[in-house]
């Protein structure tokens, strides 16, 4: 027999207590892995979502640039608009590689989506210039399949055509050729105007905010929302996207009244920084879980040591050295932690989608796609960390057991 197998058999002596201790460790590992996966996944999702906006730089009306960026990601009301002439001016800038005007509005849609009640529901409407918009987002393609074949962008100056993102079309149960009704209160008016549109295209899934968007020509959107010659943002790709060039570009155009230039890298880093702030709190939660689990492990092993005082005495009597006993108890602690680590990792991986759904349900964070990313590195670090915790948690019980004098241990066992 080996020490390790004796250690496992000793844990089996009180299966319920050992199982509860392992469960405590696994819970802590699961929390740690899930939170780490969330932080990782969320940062990655922010980066991807912003990258999928397709712009390197945005020009928008003065206001909070991060609020505007978030609006772009998840839609919303209270948007600020800038004059369309800004677009005409900026497109002539020699540093611009490509540029596209975007108008964003929020419209009330007819009820009838999957799971929708009769109460009001809204959708994000994005007015675009199809040619420049599609050029900037080279990954956009039309969905294929029954009901989707024949998809296309709008005809020039079409006033009643919309292209739907994949999720928007699925949710509204629309296909190419269907009608789609939107109700909008145009700027300066108090009554909503119902407009009928024809679905001329459905985009393939992108995993970005575009999936839930209804697109129409930006001039049509301007008319529908009663804001002629106004835009929400101007999206830009620069020929040379380096810090100094972005700086120079920004300085050239920030002089325009009521306009601000926002680099997407800046938005990214700010949003990631906000996540980093939350990371501190989440780390504290994980640390508390780990501390509680560690106390549980120490308590369980220590109780087990006291219960086996007589046995430890007899083991010493028949030749076990201090280091033998230390090793045995230490291995028991490590075994509990290792089992907890494995169980915690498995639960975290299996429950990742559940956690994701929970977060997305509780917090509308405006990020599409997977936001919990559990990598082998995260699992490896969690397992290694738990073993290290076990390494230290086992020191005291192992030392107590090793320090028992055989005579006293046997006598206490008899008493």
């Amino acid at each position, binding site marked *: *027999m*080996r*020490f390790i197998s*004796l250690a496992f*058999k*000793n844990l*089996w*002596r009180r299966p319920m207590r050992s199982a509860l201790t392992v469960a405590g460790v696994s819970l802590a590992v699961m929390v740690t892995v899930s939170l780490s996966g969330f932080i990782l996944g969320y940062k990655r999702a922010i980066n991807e979502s912003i990258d999928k906006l397709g712009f390197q730089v945005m020009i928008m009306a003065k206001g909070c640039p991060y609020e505007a960026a978030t609006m772009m990601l998840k839609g919303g009301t209270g948007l600020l608009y800038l004059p369309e002439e800004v677009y005409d001016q900026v497109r002539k800038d020699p540093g611009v590689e490509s540029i596209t005007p975007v108008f964003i509005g929020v419209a009330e849609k007819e009820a009838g989506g999957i799971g929708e009640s009769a109460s009001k529901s809204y959708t994000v409407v994005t007015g675009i210039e199809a040619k420049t918009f599609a050029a900037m987002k080279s990954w956009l393609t039309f969905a294929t399949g029954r009901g989707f074949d024949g998809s296309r962008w709008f005809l020039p100056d079409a006033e009643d055509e919309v292209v739907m993102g994949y999720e928007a079309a699925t949710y509204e149960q629309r296909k190419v050729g269907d009608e789609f009704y939107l109700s909008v209160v145009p700027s300066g008016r108090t009554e909503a105007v119902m407009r009928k549109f024809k679905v001329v295209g459905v985009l393939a899934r992108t995993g970005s905010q575009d999936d839930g968007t209804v697109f129409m020509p930006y001039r049509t959107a301007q008319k529908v929302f009663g804001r002629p010659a106004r835009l929400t943002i101007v999206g830009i790709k620069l020929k040379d996207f380096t810090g100094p060039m972005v700086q120079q570009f920004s300085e050239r155009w920030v002089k325009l009244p009521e306009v601000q230039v926002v680099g997407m890298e800046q938005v990214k880093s700010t949003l990631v920084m906000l996540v980093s702030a939350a990371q501190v709190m989440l780390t504290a939660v994980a640390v508390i879980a780990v501390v509680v689990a560690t106390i549980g492990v120490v308590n369980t092993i220590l109780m087990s040591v006291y219960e086996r005082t*007589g*046995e430890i*005495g*007899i*083991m*010493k*009597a*028949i*030749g*076990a*050295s*201090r*280091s*033998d006993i230390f090793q045995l108890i230490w291995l028991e602690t490590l075994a509990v932690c290792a089992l907890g680590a494995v169980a915690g990792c498995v639960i975290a991986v299996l429950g990742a989608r559940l956690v994701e759904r929970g977060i997305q349900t509780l917090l509308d964070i405006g990020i599409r796609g997977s936001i919990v990313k559990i990598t082998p590195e995260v699992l490896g670090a969690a397992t290694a960390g738990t073993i290290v915790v076990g390494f230290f948690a086992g020191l005291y019980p192992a030392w107590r057991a090793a320090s028992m*004098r*055989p*005579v006293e241990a*046997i*006598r206490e*066992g*008899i008493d």
Partner: protein
Amino acid sequence: MGFSVADVIIQARGLKRYYRRGIETVKALDGVDVDLRVGEMVSILGPSGSGKTTLVNLLSGLDAPTEGTLSIAGRQVAGLSEDQLADVRRGTMGFVFQKFYLLPTLTVAENVELPLMFCRRPAGRAATMGVLRQVGLEDRASHFPRELSGGQMQRVAIARALIVEPKILIADEPTGNLDSQNGEAIFALVRSLVASRSLTVIVTTHNLRLGYLSDRVLTLQDGKIVKEEPGSPVTATR
């Protein structure tokens, strides 16, 4: 005494063991001289608190004396550290206690093989079955302790003591948890081992009748040997 120095496996001279209990010093053992020979079974008798267990603990190397000299299997043990004492015991001593101390999650065979792990010796199934055969439990090798009677558990404890082929077997109240019939059977088994293995056996008991089945009987009182007399080992083999 009518034996040669070479036959002596344990020799104690002026053995003392004092304990501190608050401000009081308890003289658990107060100057004991004793020689134990190879292949001899010695009973230590005496009332509770007379120092029986203290003497056995010292003679077995479980504890170190406060004063005096003690030689076990040729090694002086006075002043040795705990790990050095463990080294003296390892492979030399076998132990049987009133409480069996079998590990409940190990089978009978695994319990018997446990000391080999601490001696860093490989466990051979033949040797295990050999000692189990000797204690009459060959057919119980794969059973767990909870499936055994008290007498059987004590036999497993004896087999565990024998697996390392010790020179000395320490049996501290081995019949204390057994009924008289099982107690006698265990005593008879131990007695038979003395002959078959040339074991030196030190046994403590409250049962005077069993105690006198040894070759020699030492009676302790107040930490001193007050009487040393021959036993009646023949009775045991009847």
